[in-house]
C-alpha cells in the first residue's frame, strides 16, 4: 500500500455558489464514510478560503511573512484527502468520486518516503 495526497482545487465562489456546494454535504459525508469503511482514509480536511492564507519564506536568514497564498491562481487549494491505496488506479478512482472533481480539479500525488534502502535520491541518480 502507498499513500496518495489528493489536493482539491476549485474556484472560490460567491454566496449562492457556496450554498449550492453546501447542499452537496450529504454526498461528501457518504464518500468519507465509505473511504473510512474501506480502510483507505488516513485523513481529510476542508480549508478556509485564501483570504485567510499567510505565506512564510526565510531568505538570507530573514523571515518574510506575506498575507495571501504562495501564488495567485484561479483555482485555489480548498481541501485535501490523504489516502492509503494499493496503486494509482485505486487513488484515481477515489479522486473521481469527490464531488469537487465535477467543478474543480483533484491533483493526485504519491507520497514520497525516505526510509530503508529505497531512497529516492538513489532512484534519481539511476535515471
Amino acid at each position, binding site marked *: 500500500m*502507498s499513500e496518495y495526497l489528493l489536493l482539491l482545487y476549485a474556484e472560490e465562489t460567491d454566496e449562492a455558489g457556496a450554498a449550492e456546494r453546501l447542499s452537496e454535504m450529504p454526498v461528501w459525508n457518504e464518500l468519507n464514510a465509505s473511504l473510512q469503511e474501506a480502510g483507505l482514509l488516513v485523513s481529510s480536511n476542508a480549508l478556509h478560503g485564501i483570504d485567510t492564507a499567510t505565506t512564510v519564506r526565510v531568505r538570507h536568514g530573514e523571515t518574510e511573512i506575506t498575507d495571501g497564498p504562495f501564488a495567485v491562481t484561479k483555482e485555489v487549494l480548498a481541501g485535501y484527502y490523504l489516502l492509503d491505496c*494499493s*496503486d*494509482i*488506479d485505486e487513488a*484515481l478512482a477515489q479522486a473521481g468520486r469527490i464531488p469537487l472533481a465535477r467543478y474543480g480539479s483533484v491533483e*493526485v500525488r*504519491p507520497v*514520497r518516503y525516505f526510509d530503508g*534502502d*529505497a*531512497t*529516492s535520491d*538513489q*532512484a*534519481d541518480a*539511476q*535515471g
Partner: protein
Amino acid sequence: MNERSDDPAAAAVASTYRNERAAVLATLIRHVGDFQLAEDALQDAFADAITSWRRDGIPANPGAWITVAARRRAIDRLRRDRSVADRTARLAELISLDAQEHPPMSEANAIIDDQLRLIFTCCHPALDLQARVALTLRVIGGLTTGEIARAFLVAEPTMGKRIVRAKRKIADAHIPYRVPPDHELPDRLVGVRRVVYLIFNEGYSATEGDRLVRDELCSEAIRLGRLLCQLMPDDAEAWGLLALMLLHDARRPARVDADGRYVAFGEQDRSLWDESRTREGMQALGRAVRLRPPGQYQLQAAITALHMQSAPDWAQIAELYGALAKLSPSPVVEVNRAAAVGFAAGPQAGLELIEGLRGDPALERYQPLHAAHAELLRQAGDTAGAARAYERAIALSANAVDRAELERRLAALRAG
C-alpha cells in the same frame, strides 16, 4: 544491430531482438518489478549473446537462451542495486526460477498476459499522451531513444528525459503492472488503440523528417496492431485498427511521385499498391466485420477498402461516413461525408451539407472544409466560386505538400 550474411550469430541476435524482445522483457519486468532494471538486464543479455553465439554457435531456442541470460543479469544487477523496492523478495523469486530446469506448463498464457500488462502500463492514462507513445515505441517496439527522437523531430536529450520521466512516474506513483479489470477494460483498450494509431499516423502523415524513420513508425504500428490482435483475438476494434493501418500502408508507395509530390487517391498508380498488405488488410477487415459491433476503426477501414475499388460505391461510402459521424462526430468526418455525398448524389447534395458546416464559426479556419467546398463548386461548374474557395484553402494550409496540391488544382481550374 546489422544483419550480415557473413556473421550468422549477429543475424540471429538481430532476429531474436526483433521477434522476442518484447515478450522476454514483459515477463522480466513482472519478475523484477522495475522497468529500467529489466531493460538494462535484457540489453546485457543481447550483448552477451553476440559473443557467446559467435563462440559456441547459435542455440536451438534463442528466445529461451535470452530469457535465461537476462534473468541472470537481472540477479546480478539486483544484488548490486539497493534502490529497488522489495529487492530481497524479488531476488529470491528470480533465483528460484533460475533453479528450475523447465518452465512451468502455464508459461504460454503467462507470456500473453505479461505482454498485455506491458502494453497497458505503457499506455496508462496517468502518463502524458506523448510519453505513452514514446514509451510504447521504446519498451515494446525496442526502438532506440535516438530513433524515436528523430521520428518526432525533437532533440534526443528531450526524448530521453520524456522516457525517463515516464518510467520514474510508473515506479513512484505505483502505476500497476496488470491487465485492467473488466469494468475498466473497454476504456483502457480505447486508449491503447489510440496510442498505436497515433504512432501509425505520425509515420504516415508527417511530411517532414527522415523518411526511413517515418516508414519504420508505420511498420512498428502495424507490428503492434498485429500483437494486439494476437493477444485479444475477440476484440473487433483491434482487427478494425489493424485493417485500417494495413490498407493505408498498402498505398504508401503510390502516395508520392518520383519528384516527391503528393498524389491524390483517385490519381494513384494502383500497380504500386502493396498486394500483400492489401490482402492482409482485407482479411483483418473481414475478421472485424464478423466480430462486431462496428467501431470507428472498422468503419474507417471499410471506407478505405471501398475507396480502393476501381469504381468506388460512393453511396455506401457516404452511408458509412454517416455511421462514423454518429459514433465519433468530428469536422473531418463531416467534410468527408459531404464530399462522398457529392460523388454519390451530385455536387448540389454535397454543397448543401457543406453549407451547414460553413455556418460554424469554429470551422472558419478549417482548411479541409474549404478544399472540399472548392472541389464541389468546381464539379457544379461554379469556376469563380471554386477559385475563391481554393485560395482560402491555400491560405490556411500549414503544410507544403497540401499547399502545392491545392495550387496545382487551382492552376488546372484557371487553365480551364
